[in-house]
């Protein structure tokens, strides 16, 4: 059973006295496997936040079916199993973080556990700010508190909308570690982040959403794979002619070549030929694209 299953999802925002509304989602089909770390990427205005709100029942779809954890997102029992961090979480400034967490826990129907809440605040790096009012928190600290609220009750599905927004680079590493721990624990992670490198590091599956449609979806390595082409770097002084006759083509930079090999045997045969010609192998990697290039190619824009 997928953690999230969306079929033919359409959302049109209608405004009073206007015949035509704004079509934010135009027939989205998506399935998020349980236990996966799923990243949703796309340009601004692609419909990512509308999609997230639709799978949480915050926005009501105009058409289509949404199933989350095998049930309707409108069902509070289903929502009790979800942790959500909105894009711009508005926190009560006069409260302390333990008070906020205790209130959210109560609204989630959890048994009050002060010690567990404190451990959670410690886990997101807010141990030193327990006595301070939330109003005095930095943007990054607020985001961490939002993450702690999402993690309350060990949810089966974590839906995070820009979780590292405003967090410093060290903090991002900490957040990434927490998210990876959650995925290892078996939690399904659904992440929307404009930081592609962040998504690439955390997620194993990606969907590209643009103009309300899913353009591409699949495992990260499948999307970023460049086919049977490999990038090889040899130590300076390699014989270019011998390498060319062995099937290597110069890639532009000094010592860097491309070679086509459909399997491991073909790749090793080509490398053996190069080594026989006196070339010393320094680096070998599949000629893949990074997420930015994948997004750009899906959008039809040059990276």
């Amino acid at each position, binding site marked *: 059973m997928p953690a999230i299953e969306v079929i033919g999802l359409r959302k049109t*925002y209608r405004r009073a006295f206007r015949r035509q509304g704004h079509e934010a989602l135009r027939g989205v089909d998506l399935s998020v496997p349980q236990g996966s770390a799923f990243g949703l990427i796309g340009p601004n205005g692609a419909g990512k936040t509308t999609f997230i*709100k639709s799978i*949480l*029942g*915050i*926005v*009501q779809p105009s058409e289509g079916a949404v199933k989350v954890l095998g049930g309707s997102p409108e069902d*509070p*029992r289903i*929502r*009790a199993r*979800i942790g*959500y961090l*909105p*894009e*711009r*979480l*508005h*926190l*009560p400034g*006069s*409260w302390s973080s333990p*008070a906020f967490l205790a*209130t*959210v826990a*109560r*609204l*989630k*129907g959890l048994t009050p556990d002060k010690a567990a809440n404190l451990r959670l605040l410690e886990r997101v790096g807010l141990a030193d700010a327990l006595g301070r009012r939330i109003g005095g928190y930095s943007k990054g600290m607020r985001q961490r508190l*939002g993450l702690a*609220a999402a993690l309350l009750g060990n949810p089966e599905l974590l*839906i995070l909308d820009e979780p590292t927004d405003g967090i410093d680079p060290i903090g991002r590493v900490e957040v990434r570690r927490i998210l990876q721990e959650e995925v290892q624990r078996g939690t399904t992670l659904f992440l929307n982040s404009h930081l592609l490198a962040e998504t690439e590091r955390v997620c194993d599956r990606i969907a590209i959403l643009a103009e309300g449609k899913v353009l591409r979806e699949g495992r990260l390595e499948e999307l970023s794979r460049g086919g049977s082409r490999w990038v090889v770097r040899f130590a300076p002084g390699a014989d270019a002619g011998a390498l060319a006759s062995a099937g290597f083509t110069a890639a532009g930079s000094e010592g860097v070549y491309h070679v086509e090999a459909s399997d491991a045997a073909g790749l090793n045969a080509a490398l053996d030929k190069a080594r026989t010609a006196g070339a010393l192998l320094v680096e070998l990697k599949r000629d893949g694209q990074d997420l930015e290039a994948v997004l750009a190619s899906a959008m039809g824009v040059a990276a």
Partner: protein
Amino acid sequence: MSGVLGIAGYVLREAAARKFILAFLLGVTGVLVTLSLSLRIEVVDGALAASRLFGEVMDTNILAVDVALRPIFMAAAAIVFYGGILFGIVSCSDFAPSLLSPGRIEHLLALPLRRWHILAGTFLGVMTLAVCAALYGSLGLVLIFGVKTGYWTVGPIISALLACVSFAAVYAVMLTTATVIRSAALCAALGGLTMVAGIIAGYRAKIAPFIEEGLSRELFKAVTLLLPRLSSLAQASMDLAASAPLGVQSLSMLLAGVLVFGLGMLAVGFWWFEGRDY
């Protein structure tokens, strides 16, 4: 139900952090303390013999205590009724808009709550606040005068509760407004308008003859028919506070009218909120 109580707790915690509301509670406490320390009343055989305010002898006739206290309780009831509703409109106008603000409402709607829990909880939280404040002030007044005169009455307390019932109808309008347009100013404005309209509705029979006969008078009658008769309730509240005979024909009908109006407004708000995207 726990969802409703949870949201009510959320609202009360927000209220506790508001300096405006804390200042109001301090002000009420100040008035009660000043009154209890500065007022000396001597009662002989159930009649007011001598009274001193800030040490100065008050020039009063010898009257039975309940008769002497009648104007005081009536004035207090009027202040609690109109002042309380006005203060409630101003101080509670941004509770619902704040709860429905972007970034907060998404978070609440993603929690295991029904949508109506959020509105019902907000309403319950605000009404708890109003009832507590009304009881605090009226109970304080009853205690002070009870201890000083030996005359005990629940009139001012019932009168304060009537003010809360009236405020409930006004707040229902404010809450419904917030679900349509998230603006504290608009909520306060419509709350104020409801209060004024409610006062006019209480005098509709007396005002109607001054309006030109025909469509306009019928329109006035039709519109005011739907509104809660707040001024009539205020009069009843003052009569109850003073333990005087009720001037209104039927208090229960007045209360039923306010209840129907409030529930009707809440039903509109709940219906609108259920279908809204955030």
